[in-house]
């Protein structure tokens, strides 16, 4: 069976998706490192790495631009890559600002948007904003740069599928023509309510304003007005991002752990990707309890461990009993994890990697390299 690494072999973009806390960032970094070791210029774009991992990758000082993981850091970890490893940390606000700057027809329009209160809140806090910008950045990197492989670590979404839905939702917001027309401050008067009233929704406008306050709606109108003319550029780009995600040179990597919630998220994601004909390159299950004892053989009791323990001159009080209990607990956990994973493994046809719970946390390049070996 092919490994996840092999399955990514011919691809240019890998997107790691899964629930929070399953080791997505680590898996993304390990996949990137492994390709860089084989040769190739590889970028890992991460969202919120553990500090020590960030330090190991040289990310601590980074903003929204890529930087190369220094050769000496790799050498210190005993790694001699044939390729290059690059890393960056996504800055959502900056990516939004860059996007606005790129599409704004003139500096005045750019400033108007950047200063709008709703824009400032939205770029930082609107649900889905992070996901949208991760996609946007990915597209920019994939088209403007010469990486052989870009690995994207996705933000921890409240709902995994938000990642695919966010761009459409936000574009729907930015591009709603009716809304823009209605909210456009009437020339001179600048009172959106008048326009809404003229269109026959008098009491609707009044009650709506009672609900949110007039100013909020005016800000929204101003904001949408600012985006007029830029929307087509945004929309076109979102279409291209989507097309890129569906190409065979892209691969989604589902990342899960044996926890029920993580398995559910991975399954939901898999169904969705399948429905959208987006290519799944592999499944990584982290933090698995290693299987130490054949299921068909009865587990040893304290009595059976007593003789070999004595022979090994290990005779701490009740050590045999404690070991027997520990092994039994360990195996019960291992068996339960495999039962809960069976459905997911059967469903996902792509390459699988089952990574045992690693001893110690993966927070340096050597740890990443060990993890990469398992992929």
């Amino acid at each position: 069976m092919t490994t996840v690494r092999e399955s990514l072999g011919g691809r240019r973009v890998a997107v790691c998706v899964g629930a929070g806390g399953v080791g997505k960032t680590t898996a993304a970094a390990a996949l990137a490192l492994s390709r860089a070791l084989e040769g190739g210029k590889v970028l890992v774009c991460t969202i919120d790495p553990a500090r020590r991992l960030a330090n190991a990758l040289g990310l601590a000082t980074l903003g929204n631009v890529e930087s190369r993981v220094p050769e000496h850091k790799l050498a210190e970890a005993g790694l001699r890559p044939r390729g290059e490893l690059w890393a960056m940390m996504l800055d959502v606000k900056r990516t939004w600002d860059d996007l606005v700057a790129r599409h704004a027809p003139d500096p005045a329009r750019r400033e108007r948007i950047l200063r709008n209160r709703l824009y400032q809140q939205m770029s930082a806090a609107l649900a889905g904003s992070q996901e949208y910008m991760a996609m946007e950045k990915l597209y920019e990197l994939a088209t403007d740069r010469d990486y052989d492989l870009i690995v994207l670590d996705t933000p921890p979404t409240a709902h995994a599928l938000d990642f695919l839905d966010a761009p459409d939702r936000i574009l729907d917001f930015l591009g709603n023509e009716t809304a823009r027309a209605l909210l456009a401050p009437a020339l001179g008067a600048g009172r959106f309510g008048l326009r809404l009233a003229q269109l026959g929704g008098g009491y609707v406008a009044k009650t709506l304003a009672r609900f949110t306050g007039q100013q909020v709606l005016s800000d929204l109108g101003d904001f949408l007005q600012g985006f007029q003319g830029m929307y087509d550029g945004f929309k076109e780009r979102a279409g291209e991002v989507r097309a890129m995600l569906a190409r065979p040179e892209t691969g989604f990597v589902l990342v899960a752990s044996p926890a029920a919630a993580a398995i559910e998220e991975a399954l939901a994601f898999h169904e969705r990707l399948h429905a959208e004909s987006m290519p799944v390159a592999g499944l990584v299950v982290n933090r698995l309890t290693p299987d130490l004892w054949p299921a068909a053989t009865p587990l040893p009791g304290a009595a059976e461990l007593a003789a070999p323990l004595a022979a090994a001159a290990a005779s701490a009080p009740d050590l045999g009993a404690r070991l027997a209990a520990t092994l039994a607990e360990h195996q019960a956990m291992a068996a339960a994890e495999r039962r809960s994973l069976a459905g997911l493994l059967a469903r996902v046809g792509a390459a699988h990697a089952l990574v045992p719970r690693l001893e110690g946390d993966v927070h340096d390049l050597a740890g990443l390299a060990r993890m990469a070996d398992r992929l």
Partner: protein
Amino acid sequence: MASLGLLDRRLLVVTGKGGVGKTTVCAALALLAARAGKRVLVCEVNATRERVAPLLGAPASGPFVREALPGIFTVNVTPHEAMREYGLMVLKFRTIYEAVFENRLVRYFLRMVPGLAELVMLGKVLHEVRAEDGGRPRWDLVLLDAPATGHAVQLLRVPSALVDTVPAGPLRHDAEWMQALLVDPARTGVALVTLPEEMPVNEVIELDGLVRGELGMAVAALVVNAMPPARFDAREAAELARLAAAPPPLGPAAEAGRIQALRAEAAGRYLVRARAALDLPTTVLPLLPVVEWGPAAVGEIAAALAAAPPAEARP
């Protein structure tokens, strides 16, 4: 500060990194409060799959408050239903609500005003905290099973963000009373849940700073979940590493012991780190060798919480 029992507040917000057991801890706290004779409401926020009621052995409640066990009520607060209730409250009459809110365009606005969905969901929860029936509070305790770190901060920040950016008006007015309730340490507390592992501990330390600093809320307790027992001492652990290479049955048993000892040792270090960084009343819950999470496991967690209620880290 006078010591205030964890469950003596009106609102307890439970949060932490994804996957640390927030929901289980929430369900266990609800059990304890109900046993103490309290009437409890547990709120989940827009959960794809509701978990609290099922953990207590009851059917999911959906977007309407429903009694899961005697004295314990649950609800999954959704933006749609919260918006409807809020709209009805503001507008008073159903017919007006329907005329206004069933309007596609209006719904679009409401969805797109940043933070409004969060505001109405949080508003629903906080409204329950304030609600009175026949002159007495409807709930003795409201537990909010908040989303994971980043999303929780985003949710709890909404009232103050609106107070800062929205001019006077109904939205601002609601944001103000919500904010006042959130930052009142006599009524509201935050319980932080973590695992004794590197990332969750880092995140909980950061979260503590955000909750106190940026949100201005009181952190009531730290719950360190799933602490493995110290079953082997350091000398034994070293010996197990040597014995793990032995043939079965000793080898595999020693390997299981070695892995357990490593985990317990690392967990001990992260617990020390968390305690050192966070001067909080702390409860350490044991790692349960649990395969199926359900009422029995929640009962065990509740028993562990009752046996070791959050104690001051530095008395």
